[in-house]
Structure formats: structure tokens, C-alpha cells
């Protein structure tokens, strides 16, 4: 692309030994619901130009949202000056293998009237089928995105696609009773499906209404089993994967340092990254460091197969660059149904949302079990309130008690229910 070539030429002229440029161009149309009413239509044109210069292994990066000549020239001069004054690090480098590839997805196209109709249909169905449910905020956006990467070694990558995101925050209210809010983001390639049919949305809305009448667990503290729902697992797994990424591995804090090809988690656990998944709406064909990403295992039957390092992290630590940096997570399903997982529990909870602090580096965590349910003698008994849970993240994943056959596809991940043990559950 001309803009990227112009940047690379300008950087070379000003003294950059190596350089790389990322450009993202996005057109966004967005319909917003506030307090149950469609009240805002937004139209945005956005650019994100990221220019990196390397001089004597010293690197600086500048990000601007302009693509005119004067802004680019100013950015080049600034990034060169700051690169000269940066710190030398042999890990500051760019991929050298000359790869040129364009990834093109067939586009659905923007249809504002259809977006509006989808929102109105959604509101109508919620009104008729989910009494007392409040849509606090909902956003339906169409994103048409083109991405480009080029570097001074001749790597040239680009992609172009479009998709819809549906983000929603909701809770239930009846008289003076209010349930905890819940939220979800669903990504879809088109609007053929009713919004209510996306991911787990129907279940989440139903749960919010049930949560109008939560109870405290009678025995105020016990160690029990926990089934974590797919929506909640997305957040929990993010904590786990932090130990496979740059920050934790470079600082040496990672639990999984020097553990490639070793069994580190329960053998029932197989997690893949699928940046080019045929099942998910989101695609992430290449990283901002100029590497084509690929579908691969992160954990296979509990064995650590790959870190999620970018190129800098890989050179810094001596490990391989990851198949991705954590895009599109897919967990392999188990053999039991969600109902069978519940039946197998003497005492425990279904954890639908976790509101807690970031787990400590050693995996210890604690927080509130939100939108969750008490299980006793193999049955869901009642929604719970003011219940805290605590445990150790690594110990949980080392002793998985079951994984469901059912999985939820939210367009960015494909995740089942997982049952863990030895979680401390305490109620007021």
C-alpha cells in the first residue's frame, strides 16, 4: 500500500536501519440503546497508523490517527529522534522472511435499516418474553476493517473483512427488587440470525430474571465444586493465559516458564488458538509484529504446547513466537452434558460471572460469584447472593472434574462448561 511504502521510505531516508508499519482503517456505523430506547446513531471513520523505527537495536513506536503527508512526516521525524535515544536491546527486530499475502473475506456490507430492524425486533422479543428485564445499554455496530503490515525486509501482509458486534448490559427489576447486571459481547458475520439467538444471550437474560430472588447459602463457608459457564470462563482463561504472554515470561514471573511439552494442567484440558477458525466470526490473520498467525494447540491434553509470545517476546525469552498472541480461543468439548455435570455435584455452585481482583502471580484469587446458582445433591436449588469464592487458579486447572459436551460460540471463542473442585465458597 502506498502509505506504508511512503512511511518505510521516509524512515529509511531519516536513518532507520529497520522499520515496520501497521495501518488499520475502519468504517463504523453504530446504533445505541440507552435505558431501553434506541437513542443514538454514530458514524465513524478511523485510522490507526503505527510506525516503528529501529536504529542500533534501539526502538521507538509512534501511533497516530492521520494518514496525510504532513502528519506522517512529523511522526517519522519524532520516531527517529526517540529511537536514537532509546535503549539498545537485541530483541528489537523485525521478521526477515520476505512474505507477501493478502487475506480477503467476503463482505456482508452495511445495512443501517436492517441494523435498526434487528434492534427493534430484539427489544420487542425481550419485552414480550422476558418480563422485568431492563436493557441498560446495547450497541450494535458494523465494522468494515482493512489492515496492512509492511516492514523494511519486504514483508507485506493485508486483510479486509467486515462483521457485526452486539454488546449488551442488562439486569432485571421488579418493584424494589433489582438483580445483578450482566453483560456479553457477541460477534457475527451477518444479521441473518435474530440477535437473541447469538451465543448464550437467551440463557443470560433468563438468568437475570431468576436472579431477582437470590438467597444466601445456608452453611456460610464450605469447600465445594464449581461449574464455570462459558461466558465466565472467557474471563478466567484470560488470567491463565497471561502467564504465557510477554509480560509474565519476560519478567520471569510466569508459572509456565520452561514448561513447553510438559504436562502442566489436567489431561482433560485441550485449548487451541484458532485465528483462522472456520467456526468463529472473528479472524486475526496476522499479528502487529508481521507474522502470519496459525491455528494450533496452546494446551493439548494438559500438555503445554505453545506460548503466546510476539516476536519481541520470543527473541527476549528464547522461546518460539506463538501461533498467535491469544486470538480466538477454542476449548475441546468433554463427554458429559451440562446437566450431567450438575448431577455429579454434592455441594457447589454454577459460576456465571466472576467479579474479583486480578489473581496473584501464584494463582490465588478471590471475588464475588455473580449471577450464580447453588447446587446441592445434584440439583440447582436457587440463585445466590453475596457469595464470595476463593481458590487457586492453577490448582483448579490441574484438577478438572468434568467438561461439558455443549459449547457456546460468541463469535470470538468456542467454550464449554468446566467443573472444578476445592473452591472455598462463603456467604454472609
Amino acid at each position: 500500500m502506498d502509505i506504508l511504502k511512503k512511511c518505510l521510505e521516509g524512515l529509511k531516508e531519516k536513518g532507520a536501519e529497520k522499520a515496520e508499519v501497521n495501518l488499520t482503517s475502519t468504517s463504523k456505523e453504530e446504533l445505541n440503546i440507552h435505558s431501553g430506547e434506541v437513542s443514538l446513531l454514530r458514524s465513524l471513520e478511523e485510522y490507526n497508523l503505527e510506525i516503528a523505527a529501529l536504529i542500533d537495536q534501539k526502538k521507538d513506536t509512534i501511533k497516530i490517527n492521520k494518514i496525510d503527508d504532513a502528519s506522517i512526516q512529523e511522526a517519522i521525524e519524532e520516531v527517529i529522534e526517540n529511537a536514537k535515544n532509546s535503549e539498545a536491546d537485541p530483541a528489537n527486530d523485525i521478521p526477515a522472511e520476505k512474505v507477501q499475502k493478502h487475506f480477503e473475506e467476503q463482505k456482508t456490507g452495511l445495512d443501517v435499516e436492517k441494523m435498526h430492524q434487528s434492534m427493534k425486533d430484539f427489544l420487542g422479543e425481550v419485552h414480550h418474553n422476558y418480563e422485568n428485564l431492563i436493557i441498560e445499554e446495547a450497541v450494535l455496530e458494523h465494522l468494515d476493517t482493512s489492515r496492512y503490515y509492511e516492514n523494511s525486509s519486504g514483508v507485506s501482509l493485508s486483510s479486509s473483512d467486515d462483521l457485526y458486534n452486539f454488546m449488551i448490559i442488562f439486569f432485571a427489576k421488579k418493584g424494589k427488587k433489582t438483580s445483578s447486571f450482566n453483560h456479553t459481547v457477541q460477534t457475527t458475520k451477518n444479521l441473518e440470525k435474530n440477535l437473541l439467538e447469538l451465543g448464550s444471550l437467551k440463557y443470560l437474560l433468563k438468568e437475570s430474571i431468576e436472579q431477582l430472588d437470590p438467597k444466601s447459602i445456608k452453611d456460610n463457608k464450605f469447600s465445594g465444586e464449581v461449574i464455570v459457564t462459558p461466558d465466565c470462563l472467557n474471563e478466567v482463561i484470560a488470567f491463565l493465559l497471561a502467564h504465557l504472554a510477554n509480560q509474565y515470561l519476560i519478567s520471569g514471573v510466569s508459572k509456565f516458564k520452561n514448561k513447553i511439552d510438559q504436562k502442566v494442567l489436567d489431561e482433560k484440558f485441550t485449548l487451541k488458538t484458532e485465528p483462522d477458525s472456520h467456526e468463529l466470526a472473528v479472524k486475526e490473520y496476522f499479528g502487529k509484529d508481521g507474522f502470519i498467525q496459525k491455528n494450533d494447540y496452546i494446551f493439548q491434553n494438559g500438555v503445554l504446547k505453545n506460548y503466546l509470545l510476539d516476536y519481541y517476546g520470543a527473541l527476549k525469552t528464547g522461546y518460539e513466537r506463538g501461533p498467535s498472541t491469544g486470538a480466538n480461543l477454542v476449548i475441546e468439548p468433554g463427554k458429559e452434558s451440562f446437566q450431567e455435570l450438575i448431577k455429579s455435584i454434592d455441594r457447589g455452585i454454577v459460576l456465571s460471572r466472576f467479579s474479583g481482583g486480578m489473581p496473584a502471580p501464584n494463582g490465588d484469587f478471590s471475588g464475588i460469584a455473580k449471577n450464580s446458582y447453588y447446587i446441592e445433591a445434584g440439583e440447582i436449588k436457587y440463585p445466590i447472593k453475596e457469595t464470595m469464592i476463593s481458590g487457586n487458579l492453577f490448582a483448579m486447572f490441574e484438577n478438572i472434574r468434568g467438561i461439558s459436551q455443549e459449547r457456546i460460540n460468541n463469535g470470538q471463542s468456542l467454550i464449554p462448561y468446566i467443573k472444578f473442585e476445592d473452591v472455598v465458597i462463603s456467604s454472609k
Partner: protein
Amino acid sequence: MRLENLKDFQESFTEHTELRLQRNSLVALALVHGNLVRNEKNTSSGISARVYHKGVFGFASSPVIDDDTAREVLRKSQDNALRLANLEKSNKGALSGENFEVVKDFSTKKKRLERKDMIYFLKSLHQYASKTYPNLKSTTFVTNNLDMEKNLVTSFGASGYSLVPRTVLMINLSLEKDGSTYDTYEVFGGLGQFEDHFDRPEALFEEIDQIYEKVKAKSEGVYPEAGYKDVILDSKLAGILAHEAIGHTTEADLVKSGSVAKDYLGEKVASELVTMVDFAHEYDGKVCPMPVYMDDEGTRPKDAVIIKDGVLQTFMNNKELSLDLGFEPTGNARAYTFSDEPLVRMRNTAIMPGKDRLDDMIASIEDGYYLTRPSNGQADSTSEFMFGVPNGYEIKKGKLGRAIKDTTISGVAFDMLKTIDMVSGEMFWSNAGMCGKKQMIPVGMGGPAVKCKVNIGGR
């Protein structure tokens, strides 16, 4: 293009219109274990317009800043408003506004440092920490320097220019003990640019010593006992208590939807020792961490006294919601970037200090905890809140005991606030808060130490 140029467009506004020109500039450096893993500047600027028509808004933005684009953005936002009003068949009444002008510039008066000086500063901190404490497993020094520069004109005649910078320096130290890694951190900085807060690295060496002592104590510490406990929340936690526990449930958009606060207006929701205010720009004659002199709808901001002597008084609002809920506008409409629409956001939310002494508060607890700093937090429509607590101590028979490991506390705000029976006299402002809603936004949070009952996570 500056404010004076924007004013040229005011006469062309035919509907309720806001035209905003904004530039956010963030310089971010991160030194992890001595490695400069981030050295970057991110600048985002552009022009946006929002038009109100019969109860709905149209919004458009562009990163291109010139007269033609401003006209195009105005046209597009008006088209969007008319299109949506037509689709929605909406017919709500007009909103009102004020004609006034504000100019506020908080940029540093000192000579600006170069990037290499900032890198040197971080490296000096790392060298001190790693040489003084060779048993540290890792050190992390991160600085984020955000300058938000806004120009706004409205169809009501309001016009404003502000440059509000915020500098944050985070120091994190980690230590390994018995095969487990522990870390803790402190945050420094506030309103102003790097030069306003950080002169010599040596001035922070003592702070590094204290962080090391805390992480060491934590690594040797105990898990708190899970349950409903008497605690002292240090003044460093009061701000997040004000923000998460009460603040969010009293934002007018959530109130209109049906947050639990809607049911308690005019009622006693807290101990009479509790007064809580969202300050627009000044407290006790001093500028707050995140001052707002004109909000992003062109409203003159007022302090919102949310709770006075334990009684819920009002909500934080914007133009439309002040009308919907029947309150005076408080001027809480804020947008993060030029391409963001203004949302109801907190500014500087604080619990007011009382008259108790911290020592007396600790002495009054037989078996509980003194919690000394927060990490992340979250609110809820029910007013149930939580926040992470990376540091604290046991209190046994009125005296401080062993340090505790990381934990989380929670409670239902409108129950918990009634358990507050002591409030200390000091006031601590936290300057590093970044609040997430649809957009991120920097906020100030403050307060004294309070004694109360909360649920604490643990073993």
C-alpha cells in the same frame, strides 16, 4: 484549528449541536526487569459533532481536521439524528443550555523533558531497586502520560478550551517465597505533566523501600479468614469505595434504567457520618485530580452532593437525564476521545473526612483487618461492589498483626454504608483511576479511612 475557528461554525447550527475538536496524547514507557518493553507515543485527534433531534442523537467524527471536514461531520451527524428520529418516530422535547466560556490550561510551566530523560528516570529506579534488593524476582516501572486537549462549541453559545494532563507512575516489585510469587505496587503522580511530579529519581527511593517491605511482609503473611468482618479501609481505599460502591449506582443513566439507588432517593442509605460528593473541579480550595470546568455537552459543572449526612440527595447526570429525572444539570457528560460521545461519568468522587483518629479506629477492633490499598474494582446495579485488596494487616485485640496475602472485599453498598461507625480526619486523593464503561475515562477518587463491616475473601 483552535477554539476560535470552531466558533465560526456556531452560526450555522440549525439544531441542538455540539462541535468538538479534541487531541489525546499518551506517552507510555514500561521497564520490565530492566528491559524497555514499551517506548511509544499514541496521538489521536479529530473533530466530532453531535446533534439532538426530537429525543435522539446523531453523531459523526473524522480524524481529518479542516473546515470542509467540520462541515461534513456536522452534516453527517445531523443526517444521523434525522434518520434515527424518523426510524424511531420519536418526538421528545428540546433540551436547554447555557452561554458561557471557559479556558483552562494545566500544562506544565517547567521545561519539557525529552524521552531519553524519562527512560533514564525509570532505569535509575530499576537500578536502585535491583541493587538494594537483589532477592527481588522482578521489577516493573510503568509511566503513562496522558494529555487531553479539548475545544468545544455548542448551539447554546457555550465555548470551552481545556488541556488537562495526567501523569501516572506505577512501581511493582515481586518476590518469590516457597515457590510462590508475590507482588505489590504503588502508584504516584496525578494532575500535571511528568515534570510537575518527577524531578529526581532519588526522591522515590524511599517509596521503593516501602514497597519492598510490603511485598516481603505479604510473602510471609497469612490468608485472611473468609467471612463477614470488621475492617478499617485506609484512606487509600475510600476513593474506590466512593466510586465503585456508590458512585456508579448513582449515575443517572443507570438510575433511569432502574438501579437500586432510584428507590432510595431522599432516604437514609448510610450512617450519618457519611457525606459523599462528586466534585466538579475543586475541593477545599484546591484543584481536584480530574478537574472539569465545562462538560462535553457545554454544561457548567456543579458539585453533586450525592449523600449528605447519610441521606441520598441526588444523582450525577447530563442534559437529557437531568430533564428526565427532574434535577438540575450537574455537568457529568464526558467523552474520552474525539470520536466518543459524552456519557454520564464521575469526575472527582469522594467521601468527606470525619473526626476520628486512625489509631483509635484500629484500637476499637477486637478481631478484623486493616486494608491498606485497593487494586481493581467493580460496581453493580444492586449496589453490590467488590474491589481487590493487595495489601493489609490483621487486627487482633486492637493491635496490628501479621500482613495478609491478596484478597478481595465485597458488600452491598447501601447496607455496608450503614455499618460505618468511625471516619478519620484525613483526606487522600487517588490520582490514577481509570473508569471503564462504554469508554474509558480518567477519574479522581478520594476520602478518609473508614471503619465498617464487609465480606472478605480468603481461606
